[in-house]
């Protein structure tokens, strides 16, 4: 089977909006009614303790929920419906949260680029740690099942099936896999932890537009002469930009400069 690995940039909590901006142009039937036949089959396919929820990505709330509430700290049968998405995010491991936001954002963007048939063929699964009522983080897998989207592909509602997999996964990293059943291919998504450290602890220096042009061409192996020809500037000017970049990024060589820029997500 074809498999592809993509590295994404983590998304900090204050930059993530659980409302994806979709618009409901026609009155949909109840999402719960739509998902009920799938929900009815969940226990048949469960490999361990599990719960499900329907996410309303227009309002950023959890519309309905069922199953083992004690898998999520602070949730119960009485208080689970119409809860803010933040309540669920709070139960995710703090190290996994920016990664989960990155995967969620990527997924929302991916749906918008695809046809309805393709969207239905995608089977995304996210793996992360979730705080339970015993104040223990357990590895879970979150299967996102058949999202309801608007005509532009923006997700409106989605059914998430969350299974405790602490019996088969006890370590490793938070990641996402997307199985495309139309092509029998699977893509894996990870986040660059190094990048997270850079974005949270070390603000990056400002780089001019021309500096970024030089940086991009350096990263694909161009020398000063080739960059000068590509950008229509003097070789000496290119060398000046290179020196500024080395100094700003505290890099000892062009190779190190490119490596830092890649890790920081600049290129």
């Amino acid at each position: 089977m074809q498999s592809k690995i993509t590295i994404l940039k983590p998304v900090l909590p204050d930059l993530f909006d659980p409302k994806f901006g979709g618009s409901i142009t026609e009155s949909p039937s109840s999402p719960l009614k739509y998902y009920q036949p799938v929900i009815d089959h969940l226990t048949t396919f469960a490999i361990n303790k599990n719960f499900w929820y329907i996410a309303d990505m227009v309002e950023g709330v959890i519309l309905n929920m069922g199953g083992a509430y004690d898998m999520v700290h602070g949730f119960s049968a009485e208080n689970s419906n119409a809860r803010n998405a933040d309540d669920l995010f709070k139960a995710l491991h703090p190290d996994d949260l920016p990664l989960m936001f990155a995967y969620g954002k990527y997924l929302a963007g991916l749906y918008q680029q695809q046809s309805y048939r393709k969207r239905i063929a995608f089977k995304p699964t996210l793996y992360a740690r979730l705080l339970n009522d015993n104040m223990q983080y357990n590895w879970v897998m979150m299967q996102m099942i058949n999202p309801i989207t608007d005509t532009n592909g923006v997700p409106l509602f989605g059914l998430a099936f969350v299974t405790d997999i602490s019996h088969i996964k006890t370590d490793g990293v938070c990641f996402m896999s997307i199985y495309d059943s139309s092509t029998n291919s699977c893509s894996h998504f990870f986040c660059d932890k190094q990048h997270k450290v850079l974005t949270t602890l070390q603000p990056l220096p400002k780089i001019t537009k021309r500096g970024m042009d030089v940086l991009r061409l350096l990263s694909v192996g161009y020398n000063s002469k080739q960059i000068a020809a590509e950008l229509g500037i003097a070789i000496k000017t290119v060398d000046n930009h290179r020196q500024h970049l080395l100094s700003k990024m505290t890099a000892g060589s062009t190779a190190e400069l490119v490596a830092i820029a890649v890790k920081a997500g600049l290129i």
Partner: protein
Amino acid sequence: MQQKTALLKPVDSQTFDPRSATGSKKNCSVQISHYKDYISSLANFATGKNFWYIADMAKGAIIKTGGNYEMAKGFSAESENVTADDIFRCVHPEDLPFMLACSNYVESVFTNAIGIKKLIKARFVRSVFKQPG
């Protein structure tokens, strides 16, 4: 969540019998169509490429298969008269004695009359990991 770990003895493929020791279809009212709904729901829960089969444990045979046949060497949509041995041949030789031990364990749980309520709640998952390379 309560977790229990049991260590089983590997079972040699020469001594394993895929036919249930005590199974009898005399009182069986369940038809193959019983699985139709489940099969049509499988795609919703796929996390990767997959296939399914219905095992006839009284005969030790596979009576129906579907999905990505190429996942199991030698299978195709046209495969007929597939036996349990055909599946076993695709399992990694080092994993097979463990898979057979698990099968025996599952059968013993079923036949030791754990009660229908418990039985329908039980989920048995056997994982086979393909060796790299």
